[in-house]
């Protein structure tokens, strides 16, 4: 066990690993970027991880289309 890593106490509600709420298990297509040729790869759950253009097998998730605020510290 790494002593340096932090793990705060979990609240009693969170003790079970699962989150509350209703699961949404529809498959969505998600865009990824190929690490080799930077082309966009659209994958649906269960698809093999492979770039359609060059066959490279490392993909990165595209940056989310959200505005993210940072505190200027």
């Amino acid at each position, binding site marked *: 066990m790494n*002593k340096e890593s932090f793990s705060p106490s979990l609240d009693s509600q969170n003790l079970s690993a699962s*989150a509350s709420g209703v699961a949404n298990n529809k498959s969505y297509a998600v865009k990824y970027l190929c690490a080799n040729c930077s082309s966009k790869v659209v994958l649906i759950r269960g698809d093999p991880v492979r770039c359609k253009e060059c066959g490279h097998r490392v993909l990165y998730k595209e940056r989310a289309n959200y505005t993210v605020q940072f505190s200027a510290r």
Partner: protein
Amino acid sequence: MSTKRKSSVKEDARNAKAASSDAAFNELFEPNYRGKGWTDEISTAEDKWNLLPAFLKVKGLVKQHLDSFNYFVDVDLKKILAANQMVLSDVDPEFYLKYKDIRVGKPGIKFDDKNDDNAIFPHECRLRDMTYAAPIYVDIEYTKERKIVIQRNLEIGKMPIMLRSSKCHLQDQTEEKMAAMGECPLDPGGYFIVNGTEKVILVQEQLSKNRIIVEADEKKGVVQASVTSSTHERRSKTYVLTKNDKIYLKNNSIVEDIPIVLILKAAGLVTDLEIMQAVAGQNPVYQEIFAVNFEECSKLGVFTQRQALEYLGSKVKTSRRSNVKLTHYQEGLEAVATSIIAHISINNMDFTEKALYIAVMTRRVIMAMADPKMIDDRDYVGNKRLELAGQLLSLLFEDLFKKFNSDFKANIDKILKRPNRASMFDALLNLETHRGSITSGMNRAISTGNWSLKRFKMERAGVTHVLSRLSYISALGMMTRISSQFEKSRKVSGPRALQPSQFGMLCTSDTPEGEACGLVKNLALMTHITTDDEEAPVRNLCYLLGAENISVIGGAELHAEGSFGVYLNGTLIGITKFPTKFVSSFRQFRRTGKVSEFISIYINRHHAAVHIATDGGRICRPLIIVENEHPRVQVEHLKKLRDGEMTFDDFLKQGLVEYLDVNEENDSFIALYENNINAETTHLEIEPFTVLGAVAGLIPYPHHNQSPRNTYQCAMGKQAIGAIAYNQLNRIDTLLYLMVYPQQPMVKTRTIELIDYDKLPAGQNATVAVMSYSGYDIEDALVLNKSSIDRGFGRCQVLKKNTTVLKRYAGSDAVDRLDGVKMERRKCAWDPNSFEEVVTEQHEVLGPDGLGEVGKPVKNSQVYVNRCIPVNNSDSLLNQSTSSSTEYREAPVTYRGPEPSIIDKVMVSVTDKELYLIKVLLRQTRRPELGDKFSSRHGQKGVCGIIVNQEDMPFSDSGVCPDIIMNPHGFPSRMTVGKMIELISGKAGVLDGSLQYGTCFGGSKLEDMSKILVDHGYSYSGKDMLYSGTSGECLQAYIFFGPIYYQKLKHMVMDKMHARPRGPRAVLTRQPTEGRSRDGGLRLGEMERDCVIAYGASQLLLERLMYSSDAFEADVCQKCGLLGYQGWCNSCQTTAHVVKMTLPYAAKLLFQELVSMNIAPRLKLKEVF
């Protein structure tokens, strides 16, 4: 698109050579070449240091690792194959398989593959947790149905490839090409990538093999000469030692110590005269000491060789597996031939060489008996050998290859034994089934670091280490590290002490503090570690140079006055009457390149011996040759070097520079500077600062510091946060610290430039005022300027990785999967009557694919990989019927941390086993805070004690305000004068607009720096008049004020802070857990308890140790004194006497455990309060 890129990459590879020469050529058009203009004068005294970059260009910092690996792959592999060439069958005498050749390909490329599209590059291996390995091909010849078949390029396994070695794609690549491969051009290489982790095989230090070492135990009065023989087949250790002033031979295959004369007789020196001549020669003192030993032998009634061998055979340990019973005579012959001094091979039962070797050992013992000064020093670097990756891998490979062959043989025997085989027998098919054993064997050994070879009874753990990527320097420091085989617990100072012979070979400053102090060493900047060289040509050369062959001379000539023994790798091969001439002509051959430049030759006049060493693992370093009081390297050579017409190898070939190992260094007279040269000088130092290693080379003006301070800095430089590599942002490492605005130091050293620390720095030039400020600067604490922090001083990023593999389960087709986001119905914020569907807080950062969205901040206990695993995957037998609808259980990866992190990268890929691999990189940006650790480059560490607004900080009349205020109490006891000089040089550099040098034994002169300061209107001393930031008045003293390079160390408060009011408890004892990672309590320990007892605060004690810890209400029966439950005593079967009491749960547990062992602890209760 990629093919296009890849093909262009290929093209680049073809042009790589041309391009690199272009780069060197273009450098000539620069107005300055290494700080020298075209018209600048060149002097040998000042510019000979240019040989150092030239050396590093050819050799590189980790060249020893690469050379060793290349030697293994290109040469040693073939030798191993030749030694294990044939596989025969016990069943079918006609069957044979013969290995003809072996070679290693390049990672990912098949031998017949013309296009290298499938090439696997190291960076992909790191990302996909694969092994950077290349196929091993063999050519074989075997019988198939009575015909001989030749099969070429048969793959027998995969070999992990050392980065930048000759089999690596990165070898000799241009910077552009490296960038295209996602690799950092400054990365030193020399490590392996196994299952995605970078593994280094550290250099190991050992006592030399196959050499005689004479030691004495003064207390017992024992002198012994020992030799560890090591060949491919076996390892044995042989001793010649004294016992009651008589000499015996000891070997681990012989039961008892054998009188030395008997052994010599067994080895063919039969007559006493022969023996006396071989051992003692004409020296009457030696003869006197040795004479007693003849008696010992004649007492045993041994006079002839046969008698001696029979006696010896009766003492041999027999551990023979086969049923063949040997006679004593045969046993004796076998022992002399194979186990005693095993490294000398025997041809045609001619033992003379071995007899003489034993005689030489005996003579060395006698010499040490006559003169106790004649013992050897175990800690002398010349008696050490360094074992590198290549040697360790070759041991491993040979073991695996032997196992591969024996498995294969067992397999074909099994098939050939069958009386009627259905199909035609083809051995090839069987060979291919064992392919995995070599691959997995090598992978396992490197990834675990356990080298267990049954053949040598070698069981070594911790051979490999994970390459530390904390900073560029820590990675580099790891590649030059040497670990010792000595036990750390032993309390002997010898192996830990700094040996004078380490000069120039091993860094004098870089060693860890604490238990490994002095045992872990580092290579100096300009060192080379030799690889094995062929012995036979050197032997022939010796005879050509006039050495008389040992087989034609007797003992009388051997030890005659004025004759010197010629020893090749510790074995006597001849004698010469003219050692000086012999040695100088041999050296002539070496300097002209007729023999390898790494062969060393030197005279040992104490032993009347000329020693030649061709073996691997010796440390050596280049020096300029001096002849007739003139260094051979002249101005014209340096000019050619500057113009790129000559390289370091040309210097070697032309005999201007040569390599000396430690032993030959002792036979030379080396001038430190050109003006020290006199008539006896043989060599000239290239540059004195090369006594330090790469890590100690970062320190400016180290020669002005107290030596332990330099050692401290060597440890701290490896913890500094900075730039790691050019590809640092593409890497996904477990833990990565990066500095946001790293700067190269104002005061550089030559070493900094040579190891490219200025390109990947780890620190910032802080303006430091050496003064007291507030009370928050005591005990080395620093005062930091808040505005500087706002501007980015000491700002760093912490990147942490999480790896998730979606597993497949054996026996069922259930696979781990990712689930989508969970929604919940919540009251609408603006309309309390309606509900809306929103993402649950835990799943806020997840995207539709169940992975965190890149760029979103994750807070504590939020999910960022929503993994689900199938339920009941273990009892798949029962579940088979319902396997169509497997149930899943959530097993998400949640974030834990006091501060949120930002998802920096989400990588999806597959491992080589086709498993879904997800790596999520989390980023935190941290600014310095109270308690963060900083250090200058002089072993002066301190924590941030207070952060002060800039308006309250002192300032100079030009408006300069310090970034850091350092307390002057740090100086007097530490005596780090180098830090003061760094400040002055740095200040001069700032005023001048230049970078100053603080190179060891050189660098910018303090006088010149003061001159610059004065020229710019500053005080020569570096002190300035400052105004108080709070009152505006002038400070009452001049303040030492200027830039010092400060490193931010990895120890940060955020990773360490910990407090807990209440929290988790351990299940067994119900006491609070231990450690920050488990949110543990802070222990009131034994010693603290003692204090509280001594003070008499018993109620406090009760509270701390029981009520706040593990108080437990127990039912105790007052009658029997045992524990009951629910007011019932089970042993008395009554409730009558049961009372409640509070006691620590751990005590209750102890009582119960004692009861379980049939011990009855009985409690006698009394009213106390």
